[in-house]
């Protein structure tokens, strides 16, 4: 089935960097769905995270009001929440921390679920807190697909585990199977 999803959102925290790099390495150039990544990062420190994540693909840290474009990979800028508006433009938000985090994975997942509904794919990777769990459940409630990295293989299991416990319908997959699903999207 082609183009099952109009957006792919990926959230990760502690222990997710290597698996994320691994996943991004297989994202095909002709994948239409924009990929939006939210990683917990240090605030107020300029970092080269985009370049760290992929040597092959350009990773864009979007500015406010930038359109969400197909074939692009985006990374939530540090110290802002990243939301999507109904007309499919990015909106940056500098409000309170959510789950001790800014950017918060919950905020982006939930906003993607509002805008893309059943055409949303959410992937939650390793992490040491519960950010992203509620958002992943909202994606599933909107008819989208919610996947977590198998907690057994995650460096920190708390994040995927919280999603599994929070709602029904969360799929538990290995990184290899997650990659196959992304490749299968083209």
């Amino acid at each position, binding site marked *: 089935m082609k183009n099952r999803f109009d957006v792919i959102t990926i959230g990760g925290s502690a222990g997710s960097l290597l698996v994320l790099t691994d996943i991004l390495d297989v994202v095909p150039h002709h994948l239409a769905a924009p990929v939006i990544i939210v990683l917990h990062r240090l605030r*107020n420190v*300029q970092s080269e995270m985009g370049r760290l994540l992929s040597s092959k693909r350009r990773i864009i*840290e*979007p*500015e*406010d*009001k*930038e359109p969400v474009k197909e074939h692009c990979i985006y990374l939530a*800028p540090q110290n*802002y929440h990243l*939301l*999507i*508006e*109904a007309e499919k433009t990015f*909106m*940056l*938000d*500098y*409000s*309170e921390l959510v789950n001790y985090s800014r950017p918060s994975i919950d*905020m982006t997942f*939930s*906003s993607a679920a*509002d805008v893309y509904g059943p055409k949303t794919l959410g992937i939650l990777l390793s992490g040491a807190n519960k950010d992203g769990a509620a958002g992943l459940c*909202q994606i599933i*409630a909107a008819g989208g697909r919610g996947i977590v990295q198998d907690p057994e293989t995650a460096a920190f299991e708390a994040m995927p585990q919280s999603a599994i416990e929070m709602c029904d319908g969360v799929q538990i997959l290995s990184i290899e199977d997650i990659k196959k699903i992304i490749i299968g999207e083209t």
Partner: protein
Amino acid sequence: MKEVISNADFLDIINIVKLQYGYDFTGYAQASIKRRLLRFMGHMGLESVFELKYRLVNDQDFFSRLIQYITVNVTEMFRDPGFYRSLREQVLPKLAAYPNIKIWHAGCSTGEEVFSMAILLEEAGLLSRTKIYATDLNPANLERAEMGILPLDNMKDFTQNYILSGGLADFSNYYTARYDNVLIKKELRRHIAFFQHNLVTDKVFNEFQLICCRNVFIYFNRELQNSVLQLFFDSLSSRGYLAMGLKETMRFADIHGKFETVHAYHKIYRRIE
């Protein structure tokens, strides 16, 4: 909490707030404000959007709480230290040429970034001939800013930011600590006037050599961004500076051709004639 605010309900709420209380949120970016309205409903234990509207129409205090809750009042001293370093190195030396310096901080929240600016000016030897006009739409923020009192807990992070911004003094010289709070030195605050100004409905009130409006534009839709940029253009003296938030950009605005870029990453612009 997956109650949803429909577009019709959202417009109703915006209209009540506008007609009854005079605050116009029509041009605000919806993704964020809808989310905050939902959170406010959860916080107040409201069961439905109807109840929210009913309380809004009938209860002034309820409205004050709503305004306090849905406007974003998060701020830091020397937020984005690199930006302050650029101000020190590229903007203040140019401002030094003016006999009297006027600066507008629009959307100043509880004042942290305004105090940071006062410290920069003091260190550049310019504060004594500067007047900073600091405005916000939220009266509760202004009351707090006016007092100059900040929680002591934050000072460790702020000191770090100050050092990263190129500050060389002992940061604790700028405040007095007492119990769990600090009081920003009166000598710094003497040059600041805090007052209410709503960027949506209020107009030009003076002419400035520098306008700082950081992380306010993100809450506006593109149309409102355009009109506020026009207001800033009209409020700047010829060759005056405008500073925006790091992720705010002028490139989607109609007026961008009337500004030149001074620092692309730190989002410092300058009015062309």
